[in-house]
Each structure stands twice: as C-alpha cells, then as structure tokens.
C-alpha cells in the first residue's frame, strides 16, 4: 500500500494534460537540430584547439627524479592543497568523502518541490549564492595566507626597523601559522605541590608542548590503575587491532594542529555562514541553506584548485603564478 500511495504524485509528472500539448514542440526538428549544431560547434572548436595547442608530454617517467613541485591532476589539486594544512587522511580522504556523501544526500534533505525548473527560483537565491561565494573565497584565501605565514616576515621586517632585536613573541606563535602552535608556541603553568601526580621528579610546571606530547588515552591498556592494564588484543584480527587504540598515547599538539583545528574550521564556517544568512533573513528554508552550503563547497573547490594549480611553486611554497617552476 505504501508503494501505491507513493506512486500517485509521481504519476502526475508523467501523464500530461491535453492543454499542455499546445505548449509543446516536436523534438525533431526543434531539439535535435540544436543538439546537432551544438555537437558541430564543439567538434569544430575542439579540432581548432587541438590543432593549435599540443597536449603536454614531459620526459619519460622516472621515479628516481622527483619534480619539484609534483602536483596531482588539476581536479585533485584542491585536495593536495588541503594536505598542506591538515592531517593527510583528513584532507585527502575523509573531508572529500563527507563532501561527496553530503552532495549525494542533498535531495533527501531538501525535499520540498518549490523552486524547481527555473534558475534561482526561490526568494533571495541569487543573494545567497553571491554572499556564500564571497564568504567562502575570503575565508579560504585568508586561511591559506595565514597558514603560509608571510605576514610574519613583513611584520618582523617593519618591527626590526624600530627595534633591531625584535622577534615574534613566543606567546603569539599561533598567529604565525597553524603549525606554530605545535612547534613555536611555549607556555608554562605552575602546578601546586598537591596536584603533582605521577612517578618521578616533577619540575613544578605544566609545559606546552612537551608535557602534552605523550598523554595516555583512557582504556589504552597501559595506563591508569592496575585493573585497567591489560595485554595487547592479539585475539582480534589484524584490522581490528589497528582500530583499537592499545598502547595509544596522544600527541596533543599534533592532534590540535592536524585534526582539531581543521575539523573545527570546516564545521564552524558553514554554521557561521548559515547563521549570518539567517540573521539577514535571506535563508528561510532548507533550500536556502542548501544553496548556501552548495555554493560554499563549489567555491572552496574552485578557490583551492586555483591556489593549488597556479600559486604553488617549489616545495609547495605560495608564489605568484609566473614564479611556479616549469617541470620537465
């Protein structure tokens, strides 16, 4: 019965009332000719393009000579760009999988039938699109520039004209780039005598990053009281052992830099975008939110592709397009 009930609205889309016939054209010639002309135009233009521009062929493949930079195909360059800023599994696999999954799930989230069959048919659709594209571009370019850290040189140069001994203060290392949280940031919190736990000497301070590099995870089988200590789970098949965090001590600074901050940004920015658009009153339903997120995703893809393809030189350094070395 459920199937029959579902079939009713669908059937109306297929059978067309008589009066609609007057709105209809014959596929031959009205559509077939357009398709034919389009095919001819594209065949011709690609023939001309292929006669003028040759496909690249570099030197014979050689795994002993690594070109610098070595880049992925252009449609994967955006993922390669993400690898520079976060954990490789997160940037190269997990985030894109979520993006594709979200893309596929879209019609099951936005189920209303309004706004179909015409460009930007819902209210504020164009505004949402433009705003989301600008939002994503500005934040992405800003984040890439921040993580590249060129501003550190600029500010240091200026400050050293005033005071030749000036250096970027260690407390402000996170403002250099995200990796500096792990490698350049230092702070110390004095720990009262009573709270100094664990065996051995205690220096009386909690120091970032060294005291956070080896934090035992709960239930890892090697930390905690005696009853929480057990042997390696040899009885599990290998792939399960790989998933179980036996013996795992977390490197907190690395985790923060490579996973926590990137995930936080990738989740928080879409939420911020939707929040702003709702406050503006432009996003009023699921379709509006879908337009914002889809536009944000597409813009991120394009911006990262452009940065990765045209602005990454030797050593994946951020350079101007004309400074990207030609590889052979």
């Amino acid at each position: 019965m459920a199937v029959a009930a579902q079939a009713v609205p669908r059937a109306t889309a297929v059978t067309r009332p008589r009066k609609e016939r007057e709105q209809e054209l014959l596929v031959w010639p009205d559509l077939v000719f357009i398709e034919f002309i389009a095919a001819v135009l594209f065949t011709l233009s690609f023939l001309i393009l292929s006669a003028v521009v040759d496909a690249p062929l570099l030197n014979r493949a050689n795994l002993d000579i690594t070109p610098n930079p070595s880049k992925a195909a252009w449609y994967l360059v955006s993922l390669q760009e993400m690898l520079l800023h976060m954990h490789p599994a997160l940037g190269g696999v997990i985030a894109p999988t979520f993006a594709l999954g979200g893309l596929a799930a879209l019609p099951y989230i936005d189920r209303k039938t309004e706004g179909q069959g015409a460009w930007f048919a819902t209210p504020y659709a164009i505004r949402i699109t433009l705003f989301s594209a600008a939002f994503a571009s500005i934040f992405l370019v800003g984040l890439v520039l921040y993580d590249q850290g060129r501003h550190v040189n600029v500010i240091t140069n200026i400050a050293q004209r005033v005071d030749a001994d000036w250096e970027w203060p260690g407390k402000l290392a996170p403002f250099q780039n995200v990796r500096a949280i792990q490698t350049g940031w230092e702070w110390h919190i004095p720990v009262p005598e009573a709270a100094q736990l664990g065996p051995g000497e205690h220096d009386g301070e909690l120091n970032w990053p060294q005291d956070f590099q080896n934090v035992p995870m709960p239930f890892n089988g090697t930390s905690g009281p005696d009853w929480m200590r057990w042997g390696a789970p040899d009885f599990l098949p290998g792939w399960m052992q790989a998933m179980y965090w036996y013996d795992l001590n977390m490197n907190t600074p690395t985790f923060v830099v490579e996973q926590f901050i990137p995930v936080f940004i990738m989740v928080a920015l879409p939420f911020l975008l939707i929040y702003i658009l709702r406050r503006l009153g432009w996003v009023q339903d699921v379709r509006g939110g879908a337009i914002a997120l889809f536009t944000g995703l597409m813009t991120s893809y394009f911006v990262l592709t452009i940065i990765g393809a045209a602005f990454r030189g030797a050593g994946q350094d951020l350079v101007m397009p004309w400074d990207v070395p030609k590889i052979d």
Partner: protein
Amino acid sequence: MSVTEQPRGPGIGGWLADKLFRNYIWRSIFRSGYPNTPRNQMLVVATNVFLHLHPTRIHKTHVRITHTYCLGGLTFFFFLSLTVTGVMLMFYYVPSPGQAYTDLQALETNIRFGMLMRNLHRWMAHGMVISVFLHMMRVFYTGAYKPPREFNWVVGVILLTLTLALSFTGYLLPWDQLAIWAVTVGMNMAGTAPILGEDTRLILLGGLEVGDAALIRFYTLHVIGLPLIAAIFMAVHFWRIRRDGGLARPL
C-alpha cells in the same frame, strides 16, 4: 508497424525522392517517412534507437539554450568523442613501461593525425570534467534534483566520481613525468585513508609504487572497466530523466 505519410512533390524532385526514399531497401532500414510532417517527425524520434533517448514532444521552455546550456548533453557528447578518439589511440599504444612512452612519441611524430587524436582526447577529457561540474551546478541552481528526481541526482554524483576516475586512470598512460608523479601523489592521498587506504593503494597499483602492474591496471580500467560502468549508469541516468517526465519544470 508504423504507418507513415508520404507526401509527394511534383516534378523531378519528387521522382528523385521516390527513388531514394520509397524503395524497398530504404524502407527496410528507416521505417518512418521523410520527417517533413508532424507525424513523421514524431515517428522518426520514436522509431530510432538513438533518437529514442528523447521524447517525441518537449515543452517549449526546454529548448531554450539558457535553460540548460546543453551541459548534460555536452558531457555525453564528450564521452562519445572520447570513446572514438580513445579507440584510435589504442591502435598505437602498448601499455608497458618499456613501450608506452615510445609509442606516445611515435604517435606525435610518425603517425598521421596521431598528435591531433591525442590532443583531442586530452582536451576533451578536461572538457568533460568541466562540463560535468557545470552540469551539476546547473541542475542544482535550477532545483532539478527535487522530487521525483532525487535518485537521479545520486546517479549523477556517482557519474561525477566515475568521470574523475576515468580521467585519473587516463592520466598515467602517457608514462611521462607528469603522469607518474600525478598518480603517485593521488595514490599517496588514497593510501592515507583510515583502515582501507593502504589496501586500496596496493590493489590499484599492484605493488608498492607506480610500476608496470599499475600501468596495466590503470589501462584496463581506463579503456574498458570504467567506461562500461559509466555507460550503465548513464543509461540509468537518461532512462530516469524520461521516466520522471523530462526536465524539471516550475510547478
């Protein structure tokens, strides 16, 4: 059997048309008459296996170029053209590390129109990736994924990934520095996937690094495996467009 109209013009034109289009052999091939009357124009679409991708009639807004920019059809056109140029290239290409690069050089210098075919194949491959993206954006911004077309959007997402996979597998075949390092970078990315990553990488490469096993695997996937899968999903994609009543229309 379809009954067709046969308007006959006077004079020599009509006589010629009779001889050309009304003889026994012609009519055994093309069952509808010359498509110059509405009835024959519908029959020519309905009785032809290729044109039968279309309905016989279509809403007049749907032939407006700006409604779709022909992007889906263009993607299909690229797929067909890539098949033709790809078959041409296969005649001259041996997928082995010893010979692939030499074959490419021969294709560019010794073989008539070899360079043209290779250029066409490469630029159209890029064109197809771009047109798939643009088609997806067209479908999204015209709201054409909404009921009853939900699942066809999912099929479209699958076709997008298949297009990227087709392009990626083809990228290795020239066996030059660009090819091998782009694939190395891509496969290293896949290798970082949790749990399944390393196995996926090993299966696709047939070894620890991009070598002869990887080349033959990518070649097989590129010339037959992925095109077959893509063709099946394309058939589903087109079939469902017809079943869902053609292009989406405002309510």
